[in-house]
């Protein structure tokens, strides 16, 4: 008889007495579109981000937003 699968890495969310399978146990079901996109992900960027703490990551996002906004303004000024 096959062994019963161990509890999922991701605990099931308990809603009252009901044990609801939230479906986010790994591994995720492979999706060909997602897998195709995954090949183009810049993992060096992710590795760098993982070295930072959460606050640094969010401050970096805010800097990027300001840069993007400035770029949009410049484009509007230049191209109308």
């Amino acid at each position, binding site marked *: 008889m096959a062994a019963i699968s161990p509890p999922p890495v*991701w*605990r099931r969310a308990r809603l009252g007495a009901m044990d609801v399978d939230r479906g986010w146990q790994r591994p995720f079901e492979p*999706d060909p579109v997602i897998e195709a996109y995954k090949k183009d992900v810049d993992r060096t960027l992710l590795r760098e981000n993982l070295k*930072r703490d*959460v606050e640094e990551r*969010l401050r970096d*996002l805010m800097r990027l937003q300001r840069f993007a906004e400035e770029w949009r303004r410049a484009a509007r000024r230049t191209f109308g």
Partner: protein
Amino acid sequence: MIDIETGLRVLAGGQVEFIVVGGVAARAHGSARLTNDLDVLYRRTVENIARVVVALAGHSPYLRGAPPGLPFHWDADTVRKGLNFTLTTTFGDLDLLGEITGGGRYEALQADSTPVAVFGIEVRCLNLEPLIHVKRAAGRPKDLEAVAELEALLEERDRSC
């Protein structure tokens, strides 16, 4: 654009029970993608709705994309009658979500979020696996690329552990 720090401070300062989801949560986990709004899942209790209303009242919340001058009253009754609100505020675009596809309400996801200390406050952030799950469940074409990055992030995180 969103001033994330101010948005989080306003909600946390108002003792609002919420979970950061969406692009800012992804970024907190290490995503490199740009996002321009703050998505939060708020608890739909009478007390928490009152706290959300008070916290945002001074920040001119208004329906994003709606023409100006609509009779939109930011009060507990409005929030109670609605569920998900895409708002503009003085600190930027805020998506105030009572429920998210594939994840449900605050109570269902609370255990799958983690308190994170950031900007001198503590906020709950949806964990990476459920974040991938809800983005997959949303099924929007624009999310597929984001999911690919998040799954790569999960692989990288596991590799570095």
